[in-house]
């Protein structure tokens, strides 16, 4: 089934078809036990007697703004004001099932489900109003949740009066959501629904949840990956008044009514460990991964590579490296678990409450219906809260303690237990034909997947291969990485776009062609051309071969159906190797834009976060130890790093809304590498492009 077809299908059947399409489109998010979005719109919407609409969704708000954009979709389809919609998100007892929040799927995947449900609900409400007012449907109109008779507005009834908080038993098939042309709210910039409580400091995150009698647990952690507990002496900790020590399998925890005193008592526990740490460190990892690149699985092979290679006049080969990076959300992992009346309730800041429900049930050997996950506000996640190990820890301890237990990781635990973005090596072999066109492209990835390695450049002969996802699914990829890796904002894409778009500039330089013109020469996809041209127009791109000394760069990329083009201007200090990003322009085609200001917030955030992985972020490790333990050595972007930013949203109402949270970050490695090259005439093939690496590249010339 084609995408366009299912987007136009709605109602009960529509939801089912949509779910099937979702399964096909996003196999990586399919839960282990097949389940699906409910077909009954009552699962998503409740209308109170006061006319307020409760919108129930299994997605979670972690800063990305889907609380607002999903509320906009519901309000648009129902014809109610945005401020009467109350969002209830991520509670596994109250909200309909969801596969998890990530992959920029909230709008692309779940938006049509919610629109379908709200459109059907509106149609049913109109029927009910017709019965109530004794007029045919075509004489009714709806405005702000009030149904009235056309030409006789005094004859009216509100949604609240019609439903009075009850479940709606009537259903309709084949109700279509509004066409884009009929939207009045969608497409306008709405204020964030979580705004007031956040500026008041009233928004409650997991660690802010309070329950009488709660014990705060700090868990004994190994000093290094590969180390396991050998012996433990908790006697000194146990002598501290109010401290309890619990042991559950391999887990040893120190508990106290105050989190700081629990942490202090943990320091009194004497532990010895055994085991063999992984031999790799942050230097040797590159050769290790490079040695695996030939063993990848081929995903695409077209044209005759050998013949094209023989015909090409100018071979251009290079190897690119991307480091492990931390999610480093400001809010640490936290969970509060309560065992009461035979049920385990866990408040936890997790991206996939339904998956965590299964995780907790399995760990506790409980039937899933005896577990409830409630998701409070989440203080950033970026893929790092895709699973819920802290929820399992809190639940296990709560069961053992006979009291509610709260687990809040400290920053060292955050860096040690993080599922880092996998480091990866990309080897690209390519060549130009006599006319200055790319003759062949052989792209081999080791450490992560080859997702988004292509963007539609015309390549007469090509091959793409990879060793696998590298833990994009939250699991360690067989033996490649020395510790667990996982999904990190646009998994795979940051690495592949960095390599491909750096390499495009290498080829453009070889061909003595302006890098923008060189890209356009190989493109026929109108959307990619459009974002590049939009970025160039806003940036004021002046064509020229690189390096020009101006310090300007271009890159384009894609993720989840959204296309982005970035242009940047940098200044490089040749003495120190320091890079200052002066300006970034980002143009984006994400189809229908639900909340333009929300989209821009994500674009600005992605530019900022992207500067981090491009210039400073890379986890240092040795002998299984993670050497970066806090923000003193692991430098994330600060106020003084922020460039002038300009975001351009392309109007594309013919395309259903695509992803928005991740796409704008994928170009940042390449656009800065290309701008640095344009500034100083040397190319850095390794991320992050630290001052040391830039100086080294300058020295080598």
């Amino acid at each position, binding site marked *: 089934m084609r995408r366009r077809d299912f987007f136009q299908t709605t109602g009960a059947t529509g939801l089912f078809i949509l779910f099937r399409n979702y399964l096909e489109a996003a196999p990586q998010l399919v839960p282990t036990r097949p389940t699906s979005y409910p077909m009954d719109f009552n699962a998503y919407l409740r209308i109170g007697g006061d006319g307020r609409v409760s919108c129930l969704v299994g997605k979670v708000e*972690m*800063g*990305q*703004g889907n609380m607002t954009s999903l509320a906009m979709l519901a309000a648009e389809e129902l014809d109610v004001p945005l401020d009467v919609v109350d969002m209830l998100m991520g509670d596994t007892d109250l909200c309909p099932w969801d596969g998890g929040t990530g992959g920029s799927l909230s709008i692309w995947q779940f938006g049509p489900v919610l629109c379908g449900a709200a459109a059907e609900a509106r149609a049913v409400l109109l029927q009910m109003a017709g019965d109530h007012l004794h007029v045919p449907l075509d004489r009714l109109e709806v405005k702000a949740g009030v149904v009235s008779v056309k030409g006789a507005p005094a004859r009216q009834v509100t949604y609240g009066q019609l439903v009075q908080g009850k479940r709606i038993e009537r259903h309709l098939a084949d109700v279509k959501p509004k066409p884009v042309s009929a939207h009045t709210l969608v497409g306008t910039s709405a*204020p*964030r629904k*979580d*705004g*007031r*409580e*956040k*500026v*008041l*400091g*009233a*928004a*409650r*995150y997991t*660690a*802010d949840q*309070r329950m009488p009698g709660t014990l705060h647990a700090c868990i004994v952690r190994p000093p290094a990956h590969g180390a396991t507990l050998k012996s433990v002496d908790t006697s000194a900790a146990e002598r501290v008044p109010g401290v309890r020590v619990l042991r559950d399998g391999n887990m040893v925890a120190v508990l106290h009514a*105050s*989190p*700081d005193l629990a942490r202090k008592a943990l320091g009194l526990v004497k532990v010895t460990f055994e085991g063999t740490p992984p031999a790799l460190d942050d230097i040797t990892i590159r050769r290790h991964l490079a040695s695996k690149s030939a063993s990848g699985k081929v995903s695409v092979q077209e044209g005759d590579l050998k013949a094209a290679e023989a015909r090409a006049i100018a071979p251009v080969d290079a190897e690119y490296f991307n480091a492990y990076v931390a999610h*480093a*959300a*400001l*809010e*640490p992992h936290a969970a509060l678990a309560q065992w009461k009346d035979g049920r385990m309730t866990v408040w936890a800041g997790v991206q996939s409450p339904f998956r965590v429900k299964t995780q907790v049930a399995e760990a506790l050997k409980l039937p899933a219906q005896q577990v409830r996950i409630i998701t409070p*506000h*989440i*203080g*950033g996640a*970026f893929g790092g809260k895709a699973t819920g190990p802290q929820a399992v820890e809190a639940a296990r301890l709560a069961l053992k303690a006979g009291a509610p237990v709260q687990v*809040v990781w*400290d*920053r060292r635990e955050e860096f040690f237990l993080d599922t880092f973005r996998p480091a990866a090596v990309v080897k690209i072999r390519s060549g130009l034909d006599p006319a200055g066109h790319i003759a062949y492209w052989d792209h081999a990835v080791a450490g992560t997947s080859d997702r988004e390695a292509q963007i539609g450049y015309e390549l007469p002969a090509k091959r793409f291969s990879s060793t696998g996802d590298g833990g994009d699914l939250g699991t360690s990829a067989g033996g490649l990485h020395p510790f667990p890796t996982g999904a990190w904002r646009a998994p795979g894409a940051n690495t592949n776009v960095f390599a491909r778009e750096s390499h495009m500039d290498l080829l453009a330089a070889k061909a003595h062609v302006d890098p923008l013109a060189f890209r356009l020469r190989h493109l026929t996809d109108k959307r990619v051309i459009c974002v590049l041209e939009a970025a160039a127009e806003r940036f004021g791109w002046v064509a020229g071969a690189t390096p020009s000394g101006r310090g300007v760069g271009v890159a384009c990329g894609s993720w989840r159906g959204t296309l982005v083009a970035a242009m940047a201007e940098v200044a490089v200090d040749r003495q120190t190797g320091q890079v200052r990003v002066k300006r970034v322009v980002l143009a984006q085609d994400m189809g229908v834009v639900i909340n333009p*200001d*929300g989209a821009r*917030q994500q674009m*600005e*955030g*992605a*530019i*900022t*976060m992207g500067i981090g992985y491009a210039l400073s972020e890379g986890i240092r490790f040795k002998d299984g130890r993670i050497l970066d333990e*806090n*923000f*003193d050595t692991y430098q*994330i*972007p*600060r*106020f*003084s790093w*922020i460039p002038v*930013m300009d975001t351009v949203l392309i109007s594309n109402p013919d395309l259903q809304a695509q992803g928005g949270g991740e796409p704008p970050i994928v170009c940042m490695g390449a656009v800065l590498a290309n701008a640095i090259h344009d500034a100083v005439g040397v190319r850095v093939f390794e991320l992050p492009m630290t001052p040391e690496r830039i100086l080294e590249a300058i020295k080598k010339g």
Partner: protein
Amino acid sequence: MAQPIHFTLNGKPAHVSADPKRMLVWVLREDLGQTGTKVGCGAGLCGACTVLVDGEPTLSCSTPLADVAGKSVVTIEGLAKDGILHPVQQAFLEHNAFQCGYCTPGMILRACALLMRKPRATRAEILEHMEGNLCRCGAQVRIVTAIEAAGKAMGGAQ
């Protein structure tokens, strides 16, 4: 160990009996229920725990309780009056100068400290003043704009 310590919290007297070496953030969050003050790094490296002590931005995760004895502490809960947002809160709201909101209380309080002293702070002064507060979502560009707008609202217009 525990000693009675008195200070002013958000304009009202606060009396606690606690270890004077205990860090202020735990007293605020655990003993006084002011959970708007966040713990991000626990080591004075991220600014999420910023509160005002006698008007000065202070990292409450690294400030012993004894240091605030007799002083005035303001947390994010103490800024709005009778439901009316402080101009800095109002500006953050209008500019959507946050995403996840976890660093927001610390950002707002640190900004308040600057604008109370210097509402006409330049962009460069704002950047320098805010440098120690981290935002992983990347709302910095909006935070700076919001602080400039708040400065104008607080009487700093040229």
